[in-house]
């Protein structure tokens, strides 16, 4: 855990330095340029949110080092009510003037964020938009439509518009629906691609394993499994391996996790040929963009969509971050 200790120490030192700088410059004209940025994100409960937390701390480390007059406070919450409470603390106790928030739920967090904005906090919302867009100054998100469209186009192209597909879905959420609708919209243009069935596997390896086992029992001829998430793809691969099935030619995950990108890079599994990026790194981009804009006193564009890209053997290197936990 020495790396962890080092990280903490560095964060503490960095924080102390920033505070000292702010104190030293107190009263002078420069003090107005100090930015106190609050970051509110979900706690690391699975691979993807683990990546979010890691990238947020990475941004804090780098930016505080680069800008001594910047102080970033990262808070993780395990549910919408807890996040709302933390938001209040950030505004009243930490006295932040800028906020980057990845809301748990759009509806539940809209009011608390609107309150913060009313108190003069500059608000950047990440990934899940608020129900009332006037409560945010800027919105930065990954491209969920592309997350469904890109795999569908890839499958249609690879199999020349003729394949039997089974699909896994995440959890019943608007995010999942967007992806699913984009996927099926492409497939509708290819009448010879049959989607045999789709079931929820909760973005979870174990559930993906079980659902795939049952799909394999039920369908004797499958060409592609759209696992729709790299964690789920992991469970899918194990189930296929156990059943010793050779009819399946491709398993398509999603999000571009470290291990999946490495597999593509090394070509170590013939079933894994491509992936679609939806990196938790967007929280890093959001914090960086917000902090730098605020330091210059500028505003961000109202909406910024971080594009999703098809990851193949040729470009996999650009998507490989060996230090990230995801």
């Amino acid at each position, binding site marked *: 855990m020495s790396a962890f200790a080092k990280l903490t120490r560095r964060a503490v030192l960095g924080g102390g330095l920033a505070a000292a700088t702010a104190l030293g410059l107190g009263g002078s004209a420069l003090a107005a340029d100090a930015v106190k940025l609050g970051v509110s994100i979900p706690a690391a409960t*699975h691979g993807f949110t683990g990546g979010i937390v890691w990238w947020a701390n990475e941004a804090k480390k780098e930016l505080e080092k680069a800008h001594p007059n910047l102080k970033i406070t990262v808070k993780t919450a395990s549910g919408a009510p807890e996040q709302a409470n933390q938001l209040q603390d950030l505004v009243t106790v930490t006295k932040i003037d800028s906020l980057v928030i990845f809301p748990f739920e759009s509806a539940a967090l809209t009011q608390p964020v609107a309150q913060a904005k009313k108190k003069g906090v500059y608000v950047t919302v990440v990934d899940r938009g608020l129900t009332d867009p006037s409560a945010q100054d800027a919105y930065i998100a990954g491209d969920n439509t592309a997350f469904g469209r890109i795999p569908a186009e890839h499958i249609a192209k690879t199999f020349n518009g003729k394949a039997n597909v089974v699909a896994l879905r995440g959890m019943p959420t608007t995010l999942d629906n967007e992806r699913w609708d984009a996927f099926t919209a492409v497939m509708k243009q290819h009448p010879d691609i049959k989607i045999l069935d789709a079931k929820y596997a909760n973005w979870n390896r174990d559930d993906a394993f079980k659902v795939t086992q049952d799909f394999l029992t039920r369908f004797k001829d499958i060409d592609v499994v759209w696992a729709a998430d790299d*964690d789920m793809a992991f469970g899918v691969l194990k189930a296929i391996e156990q059943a010793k099935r050779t009819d399946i030619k491709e398993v398509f995950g999603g999000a571009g996790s470290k291990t999946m990108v490495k597999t593509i890079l090394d070509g170590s599994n013939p079933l894994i040929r491509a992936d679609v990026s939806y990196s938790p790194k967007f929280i890093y981009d959001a914090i960086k963009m917000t902090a730098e804009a605020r330091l210059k006193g500028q505003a961000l564009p109202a909406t910024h969509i971080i594009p999703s890209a098809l990851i193949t053997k040729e470009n996999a290197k650009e998507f490989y971050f060996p230090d990230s936990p995801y």
Partner: protein
Amino acid sequence: MPSAPTPVTDTPGGAAAGGTGARRPVRRFDPLLYGPFIGLLLLLAVGTALNPDFATWDNWMNVLTRTAFIGIIAIGMCFVIISGGIDLSVGSMAALIAGATILMMNALSGLLLSSVAVVALGMLFAVALGGGFGLAHGYLITRGQIEPFIVTLGTLGIFRAVLTWLADGGAITLDMTLSDVYGPVYYGSLLGIPIPVWIFALAALAGGLLLNRTAFGRYVQAIGSNEQVARFAAVDVDRVKLLTYGLLGVCVGVATVLYVPRLGSASPTTGLLWELEAIAAVIVGGTSFKGGAGRIAGTVVGAILLSVISNILNLTSVISVYLNAAVQGCVIIAVAFLQRRRP
């Protein structure tokens, strides 16, 4: 809490402490005993009617193998619930044991040890860790005099948080060479029956014998019926309770030993909600939530029933995927109705 001292003769279920040869009720068709079995048979019929692939050996082995984890945990849970306790932490505990075991095995494989030895040590470690966690629960509940609900609600959070911290929010993955050596524990089979199913069957048999044929089993039932009376009857209540939680911990350890080779990884979603599935299996199987009486056979059937429901739902698309949980809920309530207790 059945704390009001009642006369011994009023002990419900007649399972008073220390009774020799169990008294059996007059043999009649008793839905209380057969409810879960009838439920399972009906489900099997429905499954076969909906999809002929349901009634294949391979599918049944798939279902039984994946039931093994919850089933083994439910057997331990059965003892705890019969004794009048509860354990909400088993899913988190399984996740933490899986993570800690993988980390330990990965660390050991760097030393001069054969892979087989490392895996064997890992399995022992998992079971010992489970037993240790269980005893810690028992100790806090008996000596610390904290309600089991609160103790295990606390550790539910602690275990999962520690795992998440160890995993850095990601996944802890078993070394490839170890994974190959360990794989057969989940994927291998003996006489055509997968290893986890054998272990599940052995655990059920041992649990049944322990509950119905030993003094310990009778003490557990006596404590659940009426703790005060059991105390008056010179049962060492604290020790028996401590052991039931220890036993459940060992069951979780054994389940984890079987779980780790399946995916070779542990992540913060490992074992999510297993506690509710295990408790549901016990209750659907005809054990009283209030404690005092229960059956291992019913628990085993309850666990199988729960996984058969989701298996059938996966094998058909009659019902919208949005309603899967509702179907599960209906079946659970229906089976509970079949074996309801009459006043």
